[in-house]
């Protein structure tokens, strides 16, 4: 990497944050960093709406009769929770925020390939999200985020078409973001930054972008067909007018299973960056980890039928999907083994991002292995559509994707804001979220094994103890999520100045100032070495131990 001279941060230096202070300068910006900040604000808003719905659900499930809300309200709550968390928080979470901010910096580029398209993505996301919130305020939807036919087209009385319209529009945001990342990675890498010198964050976001571009159109088509059937009565999925409800499930899961990898692959990319930095090592088996991302993206498209073992597809189809689902587990396992291996003989510092990363490994391991239960047809015929499934995918999506997002947010927070978050509070939040998460979702594995179905407003009395434990855990988890909201906001004004490279991390994003100037680099960087060359960085630190300089 090029060595640039150390410039102390001053408040007068031009940064992407102080080039303009008007609302217009934010809403019409083409700077990928400002757009990333817009995304951070908007996904945080949606996260707390989705989280409020979950809070009400967990409170309702304190008693077997479900005394807090009406059954029809409960159905709308879990639908709102699922729709908002999946389509308006998890899918854009890491790619649209950290990816948007960091990818051009990591590549040594001045922006993404299509800055205007990037801004359009955000507007599409906001338009889609507004429609979804409008549907929620107007009375809500009760189909579940899966919109299963023929319930969603013929029987549901909620605002199905409006919600579908919102998801449809937000889908284009996802497609455009993916397209932008793919083109940027191909065309805008710094001189010398070859494919196998790329940070693994880029590899995983590249794989994610492939899924976004290839998968999202299918769910858009599927949901458009549901809306056509609902509004005009064209028989596509409803058997009473000549349709096939199982066809809907094939089309829906063709996107929505790969969508799980849209959520988890970027978090895996964050893991590689954070673990390399806080162990001061290159990632164990770099190429294996890189290719594992691509393998997950490709195989992820071929496993959708494991959602349908008992749904009416043939046993032969089930066999094929079961086998492929086992195969997709292997590259995920390889990543976990390699991250753990990276710690071997490292110099490990348990800062907040690293604590989140270790939490990620633990929770993702449990979530992934319990996924094998559901890939096994003989076990799935008992566990399907029970709380076991809920626990499994929350271990992946919350334990994996959100832990990854939080880890990445803390890791790059000094770069994004120029300020340090308070370390002790950060560590506390990581530990609280880990404990609260396990207390919330581990009892749900047991509930599922005992047979408690998902999407139940009430339940038989013998399930109460585990439900109370889960709700208790959720309240701890809630505290864990509110803490960072508080101290991160506090740090914007009061946090210590970060300097350009507080972690002494590898990667081009740390060679520019914090916060970076509008066009990222004063001079275009040239790359002369592999990613994660911590041996060199640490050797130079010993030679000239100036904080923030490399």
């Amino acid at each position, binding site marked *: 990497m090029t060595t640039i001279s150390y410039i102390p941060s001053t408040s007068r230096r031009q940064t992407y944050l102080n080039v303009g202070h008007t609302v217009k300068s934010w809403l019409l910006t083409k700077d990928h960093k400002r757009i990333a900040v817009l995304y951070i604000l908007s996904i945080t808003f949606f996260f707390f709406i989705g989280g409020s719905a979950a809070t009400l659900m967990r409170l309702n499930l304190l008693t077997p009769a479900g005394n807090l809300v009406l059954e029809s309200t409960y159905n709308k709550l879990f639908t709102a929770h699922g729709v908002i968390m999946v389509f308006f928080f998890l899918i854009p979470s890491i790619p649209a925020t950290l990816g948007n901010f960091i990818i051009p910096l990591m590549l040594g580029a001045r922006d993404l390939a299509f800055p205007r398209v990037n801004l359009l993505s955000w507007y599409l996301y906001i338009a889609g999200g507004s429609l979804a919130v409008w549907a929620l305020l107007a009375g809500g939807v009760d189909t579940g985020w899966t919109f299963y036919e023929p319930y969603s087209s013929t029987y549901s009385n909620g605002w199905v078409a409006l919600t579908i319209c919102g998801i449809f529009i937000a889908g284009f945001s996802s497609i455009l973001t993916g397209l932008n990342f793919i083109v940027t990675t191909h065309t805008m890498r710094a001189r010398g930054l070859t494919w196998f010198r790329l940070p693994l964050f880029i590899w995983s976001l590249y794989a994610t972008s492939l899924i976004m571009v290839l998968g999202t159109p299918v769910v858009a088509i599927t949901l458009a067909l549901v809306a056509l059937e609902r509004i005009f009565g064209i028989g596509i999925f409803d058997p009473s007018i000549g349709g096939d409800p199982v066809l809907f499930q094939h089309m829906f899961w063709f996107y929505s299973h790969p969508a799980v990898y849209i959520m988890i692959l970027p978090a895996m990319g964050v893991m590689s960056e954070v673990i390399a930095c806080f162990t001061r090592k290159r990632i164990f*088996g770099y190429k294996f980890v890189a290719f594992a991302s691509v393998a997950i993206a490709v195989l992820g498209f071929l496993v959708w039928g494991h959602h349908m073992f008992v749904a009416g597809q043939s046993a032969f189809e089930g066999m094929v999907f079961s086998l492929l689902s086992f195969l997709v587990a292997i590259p995920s396992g390889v990543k976990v083994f390699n991250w753990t291996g990276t710690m071997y003989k490292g*110099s490990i510092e348990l800062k907040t991002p690293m604590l989140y990363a270790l939490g990620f490994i633990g929770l993702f391991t449990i979530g992934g292995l319990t996924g094998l239960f559901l890939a096994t047809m003989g076990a799935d015929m008992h566990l399907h559509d029970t709380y076991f499934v809920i626990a499994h995918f929350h271990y992946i999506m919350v334990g994996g994707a959100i832990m990854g997002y939080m880890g990445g947010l803390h890791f790059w927070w000094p770069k994004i804001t120029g300020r340090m978050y308070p370390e002790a509070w950060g560590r506390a939040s990581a530990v609280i979220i880990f404990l609260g998460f396990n207390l919330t979702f581990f009892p749900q594995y047991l509930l599922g094994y005992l047979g408690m179905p998902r999407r139940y407003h009430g339940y038989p009395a013998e399930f109460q103890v585990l439900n109370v434990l889960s709700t208790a855990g959720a309240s701890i988890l809630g505290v864990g999520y509110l803490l960072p909201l508080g101290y991160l906001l506090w740090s914007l004004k009061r946090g210590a100045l970060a300097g350009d490279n507080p972690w002494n991390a590898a990667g081009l994003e740390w060679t520019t100032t914090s916060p970076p100037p509008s066009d990222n680099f004063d001079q275009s960087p040239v790359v002369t070495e592999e990613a994660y060359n911590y041996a060199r960085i640490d050797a130079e630190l010993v030679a000239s131990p100036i904080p923030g300089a490399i």
Partner: protein
Amino acid sequence: MNTGFQFIPPHASAMSWQVDWLLLALLGLTIFFTVLIFFFIVLFAWKYRARPGHKAEQVEAPMALEIALWGIPFILCLGLFWWGTRLFLSASRPPAGAMDIYVIGKQWMWKIQHPEGRKEIDELHVPLGRPVRLIMASQDVIHDFGLPAFRIKRDVVPGSYSVQWFTPTAVGEYHLFCDQYCGAQHAEMIGKVVVMEEADYQRWVAGSVTDGPMRQGGEQLFVNMNCMSCHGQWAPTLAGLYMSRVRLADGRTVQADDAYLRRSILDPGADIVAGYQANQSVLMPSFRGTLTEEQIDQLIEYIKSLAPAAYLEEPTTRPVSNGGADLELRKPGEGGPPPLTPDPNKPVE
């Protein structure tokens, strides 16, 4: 039903134990890898903690280790895949001679009818030790007939039959849950399975029958709908049809199981029997929307009653059809009920 706190749901069939053994193996695998990963994370985080004088050592992963990390999980996965698939397949194939019980799901109740005629709602009474085959249909949206004590469930999809089976091995009452979200009162679409001694079941099934056996209702429909004006004359006879192999006009050969009969009633153009495709003007009309799910079940139960008893016992040894020839009546005295009408076995030219 045990309403106290429990860790293991009751076991009410041999399958429930088989599923639990599989789950135990998966649990073992999960614990092994989780403990392994946690152990090394904690060990490394302590042993290689950053401290003055300690430096990271750059170590490359040996190729043999990387290959082992791909290979060993791969082999374990293949083994689990095979185990789970075999179990699922055996849970999907009802044994010969299973007793049929008809289940109809609708928002938000389960309507169940026994062939002897007894009906029940949100309860399923079954005799101990006899394989039970559930023939399930939905009147509206997708439901799911979930039986945690038997470790099985199947979606009940509108427009077609779903089938599942189990052999109860313990007397008692067990949960019945709708496992597929079906609308406002999904969480109230629950009931119970009552496993009874054979004698108790016989007493139960004979008590308070209002409509007579299902096949009688089916026969009545057969007459009222004027089915016999064609079937047995220029349309295929239905005697001996059930579970026989039928050659179709497009060259396929299918087994005349419940799903086939249902399709033939609702969508008669889908599977035209070989030799009957000639005359468009006498093609059977669809009875979709004309018949309720209960009536379809009754008709099928009636058609089943026309099959020789021997064919019901041993589904695998049935003769293979050769065109329209084996649609002729079975010889009398094979145990089946008397034939409907002599079959000219020729479409009207």
